[in-house]
């Protein structure tokens, strides 16, 4: 295909991405180095305050008032602030302080590091990043193991049943995340089914949603439940492409089930495990819905939820833009291994 024809064919797609993805990214950078506010001035304002019996009294106070332009609209000021928003959002000074100390006496290096960690995780961005990383760290191996287990189990089942097994397994992944997180959330309410059944079994009333550890565990379990189907489908497809010969010769050589899994099946699936890890890490970095639904950003926050909260609830676009920049830096770091792999592949082709 000629370059000119190529450009003509990709033009609409490229235009949409330039206009609505690339340009907004530039916009975010721009927003993050500015601060905007309504221009105000202190003015004496006289108001009539009602007293009793229909009488009023005039009160004069000095209050900030928006300055109006000729059309009577408030004047909006954009002020260039450089890296200030970014510094405030990342709380870089606080982080540096935390490393400088002072530290409690009589503690080794471990105690000091713990102290630094505790202080840093008090800051919004760092605590959001902390939970995002914890979520990624715990869900990734779990979905690989569960996905592989389910794929192997489904592979042993008779052909006729497999369709419905796949159907059920797809549910957690395809159903709207906000609905599936709610479905889990409702089960763990104080009078939800799980809490009630645990109480009947004699565990006492457990308040899952009112402390940090159980909230975090629930969100991570949700993440595993939500993403395991993805790993399962891909590994199941991988098992279908598995050549029969190595397995059969392993059996003839007397390998037991575990040895066949360890030395024949897993090596065959390794590239797929890598792909699943890559995609899941990218998705885990964006975790949003369970944090919103569980409604307890005090206990567990995520990078994307933090930005959403600052943007949508606090309505502070400049701070949100600064958080976005930090988010993008994180994405780039995550992508480095993937991009390096892609470049190597491209070189190999050329």
């Amino acid at each position: 295909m000629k370059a000119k024809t190529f450009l003509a064919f990709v033009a609409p797609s490229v235009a949409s991405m330039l206009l609505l993805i690339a340009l907004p990214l530039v916009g975010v950078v721009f927003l993050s180095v500015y601060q905007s506010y309504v221009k105000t001035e202190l003015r004496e304002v006289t108001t009539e305050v009602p007293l009793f019996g229909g009488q009023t009294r005039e009160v004069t106070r000095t209050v900030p008032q928006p300055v109006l332009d000729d059309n009577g609209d408030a004047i909006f000021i954009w002020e260039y602030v450089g890296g200030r928003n970014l510094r405030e959002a990342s709380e870089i000074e606080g982080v540096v302080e935390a490393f400088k100390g002072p530290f409690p006496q009589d503690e080794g290096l471990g105690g000091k590091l713990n102290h630094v960690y505790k202080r840093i995780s008090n800051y919004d961005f760092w605590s959001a990043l902390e939970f995002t990383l914890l979520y990624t760290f715990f869900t990734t191996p779990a979905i690989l193991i569960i996905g592989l287990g389910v794929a192997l189990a489904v592979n042993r089942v008779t052909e006729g049943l497999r369709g419905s097994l796949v159907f059920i397994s797809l549910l957690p992944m395809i159903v709207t995340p906000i609905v599936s997180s709610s479905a889990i959330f409702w089960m763990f309410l104080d009078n939800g089914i799980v809490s009630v059944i645990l109480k009947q079994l004699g565990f006492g009333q457990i308040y899952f949603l009112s402390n940090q550890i159980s909230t975090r565990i629930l969100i991570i379990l949700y993440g595993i439940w939500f993403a395991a189907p993805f790993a399962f489908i891909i590994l199941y497809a991988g098992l279908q492409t598995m050549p029969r010969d190595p397995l059969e010769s392993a059996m003839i050589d007397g390998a037991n089930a575990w040895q066949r899994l360890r030395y024949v099946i897993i090596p065959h699936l390794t590239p797929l495990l890598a792909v699943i890890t890559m995609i899941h890490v990218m998705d885990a970095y964006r975790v949003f819905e369970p944090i919103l639904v569980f409604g307890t950003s005090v206990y567990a926050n995520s990078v994307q939820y933090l930005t959403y909260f600052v943007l949508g609830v606090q309505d502070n676009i400049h701070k949100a833009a600064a958080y976005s920049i930090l988010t993008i830096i994180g994405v780039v770091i995550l992508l480095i291994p993937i991009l390096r792999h892609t470049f190597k592949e491209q070189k190999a082709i050329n």
Partner: protein
Amino acid sequence: MRKRKSFFLTAITNSGLGLWLFLAMFPFFWMFLISLRTPVDAFSSNPTLFAPVTFKHYFHVWFVDEFWRYGINTAIVTLATVAVSLTVGCLAGYALARYGGRMGFWLLVAALVFRALPHVVLLTAYKPIFYEMGLWSRYEILIIVLVAINQPFTIWMLRAFFRSIPKELDEAAMIDGCTRWKAFRLVIIPVMWPGVITAGLFSFILAYNDFLIASQLMSGDMTTMTAALGNYMGQNRSMERLMHGIAGSVSVTIPLLFLILVFQKQIVEGMTAGAVKG
């Protein structure tokens, strides 16, 4: 000996599988069940499988809270998003599959980076820009935003699919005197539908499931079903409100169940196309 061992193994894998299926299904099953109950039965301290059935939560959600409006909005937005993103994506995916130059590679790398971006990053820019331009709460805006966000994934997937259509097919047509565009229209379009349906499904699911963007760019009567569910959330709502949220959630889930039932094969193919073939 051998037989007993494999019986043992089968028992273990099957009970593990059974546990997984129960876990995958139960939250939805229970949500569906309690959506038909009064709050007292739904969150009773003595849960039962059978309880008196009531449809009043559904009635309230659909007709008092006017969920039907949001249903129409969702239909308009998702169908238009699917149509536009497939049209735009097919052209790009086809060109990427047939063009060997550097530009194609860079476009794919850029798409990969864009795909990894959390959507809230883009939203941060959209909010002030669209607000300044007065483009608020409009179908067109939500549709083109969802199309653009869908593009990176769509072009990767369609490229993989178009590569599986033999080159010789359109080259033969061009030797017979077709232009590239004519070859695409007359030779490729008739054979591309399986891949396009698969890519369309994923566009549909992304647009239908989107909460973040719709909840921020649309307001009032213009919002979608998924974004409208946000109205029922929060811990300090009344029991009635909570039940309405459950009925709304079930309403949002049902179309997806039909989608999986009908297109299960295509969904599985689409998920594996990218990963298994590289």
